[in-house]
């Protein structure tokens, strides 16, 4: 099953909401660094990466974590690897 961009975007936002339930995702600028926009820290980001891997079954090597620091960047990265 190949994933659509919309499915991936939904997954990113939902998992973000699970890691940081305080986040106001409605007004979130998808190109802004999540750490600034939502006050998430590096442990939160690590948990987000683990949750996305689990949910989508896409490998995200730790080295690539910095490539998923905005919603848009995360969607693009995951889409490219979703095959």
């Amino acid at each position: 099953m190949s994933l659509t961009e919309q499915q991936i975007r939904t997954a990113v936002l939902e998992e973000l909401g699970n890691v940081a339930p305080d986040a106001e995702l409605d007004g979130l600028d998808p190109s802004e660094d999540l750490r600034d926009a939502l006050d998430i820290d590096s442990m939160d980001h690590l948990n987000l990466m683990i949750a996305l891997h689990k949910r989508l079954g896409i490998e995200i090597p730790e080295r690539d974590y910095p490539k998923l620091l905005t919603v848009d960047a995360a969607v693009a990265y995951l889409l490219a690897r979703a095959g």
Partner: protein
Amino acid sequence: MDFATIEKNASALRPRPNLTNYRATRRVFSYEAVRRELGWQPGGDFNIAFLALERQIDRGLGDKLALRWLGRDGSQRDFTYAALDAEANRFANLLRGLGVGRGERVFALAHRTPALYAAALGTLKAGAVFCPLFSQFGPEPIRARMEIGDAALLLTSETLYRRKVEPWRRELPGLRHVLLTDAEADASTGAGATIALAPALAAQPDAFACADTGPEDMALLHFTSGTTGKPKGVIHVHDAATHHYATGRFALDLHADDVFWCTADPGWVTGTSYGILAPLLHGVTMIVDEAEFEAERWYGILQDQKVTVWYTAPTAIRMLMRLGAEVAAGYDLSALRFPASVGEPLNPEAVVWGKEVLGTPFHDNWWQTETGGIMIANFAALPVRPGSMGLPLPGIEAGIVERGEDGSVTEIAEPDRPGELALRPGWPSMMRGYLHEEARYEKAFAGGWYLTGDLARRDADGYYWFVGRADDMIKTSGHLIGPFEVESALMEHPAVSEAAVIGLPDPVAGEVVKAFVALKPGFAAGDALAKELLGHARKRLGAAVAPREIAFRSDLPKTRSGKILRRLLKARELGLEAGDTSTLESDEKR
């Protein structure tokens, strides 16, 4: 698994380590001699920022690079000792112009920008007290600390102010001024006014006659959490510089030509004592990175800035380890001579990983907010025992003690028997009090010892090993979190009737905060409510303090006096023997 001691060939180390003969140095060491070396004369002035800046200029280091700031966007700004002094002077003049007087508290809630460093030093030069807060705190921890500390002025950024301070600012009538680091113009008047920092500083002269503080005048106020009750404001005085300097020499092995990088945020005591003061007192070049942890960015900084002495934290080291040695191998880290770690015990695997990947083990050390500086350390020229916090610094007498039921304290002489880690008070950076909390301060001492609240053992050779906390405090990502503050925030939610918060072991963060919650009638446990409670706690406390996990219980284990037994919850969670539960009035129910 046992880890072999990592031996050092001291005579082969270059530059020659500052401490080679441990016993002899301990014997001859005196803080008086250190003060004299810093130019102090009995009865004379003593000011940390004067020693960190003007003394260096007097020594001919005015043109030397003091601070290299690395912006998140890849930009870089350099400040010589003379330039940093000028910036600090502008800030000191601004404080004086605003009527902020000697001993008044200047709070900072700011990202790591050059303005924060200049403000810290300028505050000290003005004779006011610098109180840094971690910018990832939520509104409640910020407000509680500013109330306790009688904040007269706050330095922060526009966004942090709007999100975390503005909603309750008017309820702190003592807070007279708010300076915004990134605002372009002053805003409004009256009780909600803010001042744009840059234009205000530009109007100030860059010369300032440093306040004539004495060694015992209050200089720094750092906050630490308690198991019960409100956070504690830990008072440090200008004489702390004597210990910062001595430990910069012995524990961090600072030499004149070093490039030093302390990765801690000044919102925590490490980021002030060693992220600002100790390196400047030694006249070395320090690196400040605005960005948060990012493995390859950090390797890049170590390589490109040719960092020689690096002071970081276990969580970051473990994240680097997860990434693998191959990534490190892609960088030239040959300049790095002395990597050190603090914040929570560094696991032996990480100490040894340093040896394999960096060519030198990580040197763990131990201290706490109350001690103001490093107390026990692994030293450059001495053998490292992986997993041990090391040996007491020259000038520091440590012991393992046990408290009797009558409150008496006896020292445990027998090696390897765990007890409470204790220190003989009297070193210069020892706290001088918990602000407005004399009784809590006195409770920290007994039998001529300062009792640290940490359990440890000492082996037959005098090395200290961390065993655990004597109380319910939680160490997560190097930060000490008091369960009470977290429980209080959870209790504010209408669904919560009781809450208990514990730390659970975590391979990266050391411990993570987990909350057990009992609900009021009419509320149903479930994922949706768990998420709501997590969000509620994060909004009030910030990500650094809030729980990462919530579990529901229909009842929590309590003693007859109604005290929730966090330890029992933790023991059960870890599958350990729960111990004597005969004092339980009510037990946990799922």
